[in-house]
């Protein structure tokens, strides 16, 4: 699509709606000047090809990504995060083409670690996945707009999600590293705490898991493990029926602190939850009706192959609820998470950035 013209901003927004270039919400009009400035904030030449986005196999250039970031309402500081997120979903392990095309309700969850959380003001506390946080809202939205306009994911013709879920508009948050007693998630994925990263994984809608911990109850940690495991090992999830994929878990700071105070590590938690995320063959056969793998000798199925298949990070407010993100478990790479470093120091000086 070449350059468009309209008589004013309002007409331009209507034109973009009519052309199917929006997510249904109003957008910031990507004027050449705004796109150029956002491109400068990304720190690379506008015509640099970052990769291809399926199912349209569209070339994702810095300029096209800048268009998406402008339309989404990003600030220039958000540009390197958007760029890293786009690179992550274009990694072949992410299976973006298949993920965009599937009938399953799946959307990319973006988790930001490292110093970028602060300089982008990406929220990781109360309501981090809800409204009110510009960086969270616009970074995730920019990725979605890129997936629509570059990747060609449009409902009913190429994005075949039967119903979808609201996370398909935007789903981005930071790990609450300041309130976590554990090491940040990206350090377990090969990065240094001083590096900033995005980790992107395709997930279902978030599922609240209520766990009332009690310091006087010696079964508290076991109950926590069983409850978290049950969120994945129920017959409604693809983790139970298909297995073999990865999924995510947002541990609230109270739950994390409780575990740490009893000497638990994240590695132990992952191992215990993955071991407990098991569904009985007879239970599954009586409900799901989609069993294409043999049960284990004990007549059960595991939801996860390895402890590392469960991404765990600390986020949200302190309280009763942690949140499970079941997943799709399909595609050639079976729903793999991808972590990419956010490149800092590439950004050029941006004339008039405050008015972007």
């Amino acid at each position, binding site marked *: 699509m070449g350059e468009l013209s309209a008589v004013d901003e309002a007409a331009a927004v209507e034109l973009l709606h009519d052309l199917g270039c929006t997510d249904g919400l109003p957008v910031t009009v990507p004027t050449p000047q705004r796109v150029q400035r956002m491109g400068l904030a990304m720190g690379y030449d506008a015509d640099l090809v970052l990769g291809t986005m*399926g*199912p349209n*196999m569209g070339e994702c250039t810095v300029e096209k990504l800048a268009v998406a970031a402008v339309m989404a309402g990003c600030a220039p500081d958000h540009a390197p995060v958007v760029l890293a997120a786009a690179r992550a979903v274009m990694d072949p392990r992410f299976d973006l083409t298949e993920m965009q095309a599937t009938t399953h309700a799946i959307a990319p969850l973006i988790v930001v670690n490292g110093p970028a959380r602060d300089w982008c003001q990406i929220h990781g506390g109360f309501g981090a996945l809800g409204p009110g946080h510009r960086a969270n809202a616009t970074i995730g939205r920019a990725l979605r707009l890129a997936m629509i306009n570059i990747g060609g994911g449009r409902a*009913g013709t190429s994005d075949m999600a039967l119903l979808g879920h609201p996370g398909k508009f935007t789903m981005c948050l930071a790990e609450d590293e300041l309130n976590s007693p554990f090491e940040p998630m990206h350090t377990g994925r090969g990065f240094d705490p001083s590096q900033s990263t995005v980790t992107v994984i395709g997930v279902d809608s978030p599922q609240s898991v209520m766990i009332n911990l009690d310091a006087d109850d010696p079964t508290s940690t076991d109950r926590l493990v069983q409850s978290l495991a049950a969120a994945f090992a129920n017959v409604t999830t693809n983790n139970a029926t298909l297995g073999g994929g990865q999924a995510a878990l947002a541990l609230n700071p109270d739950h994390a602190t409780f575990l740490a105070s009893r000497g638990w590590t994240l590695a132990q938690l992952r191992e215990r939850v993955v071991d407990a995320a098991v569904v009985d063959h007879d239970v599954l056969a009586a409900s799901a009706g989609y069993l294409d793998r043999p049960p284990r000798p004990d007549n059960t199925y595991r939801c996860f192959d390895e402890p590392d298949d469960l991404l765990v990070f600390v986020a949200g407010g302190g309280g009763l609820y942690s949140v499970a993100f079941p997943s799709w478990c399909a595609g050639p790479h079976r729903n793999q998470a991808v972590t990419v470093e956010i490149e800092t120091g590439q950004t050029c000086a941006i004339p008039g950035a405050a008015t972007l």
Partner: protein
Amino acid sequence: MALVTTEFWAQGDFIARSVGMPDIPRVQLPHPVAGSGTKNMTMVAAHILPGILDSLNGKAAIDG
């Protein structure tokens, strides 16, 4: 040869174009086929078989 139900026909067109294979042979099936029962699926198979054979023999893709 791709078997595509009516609900997914537009997606099939989209994917065929995007991967540079706009003329890939496709046969259209009613929707849904999955879970519609052996009797129905046998009927669908019998109905589309001539079209599949024609397509495999180099004739045009069909809308079943």
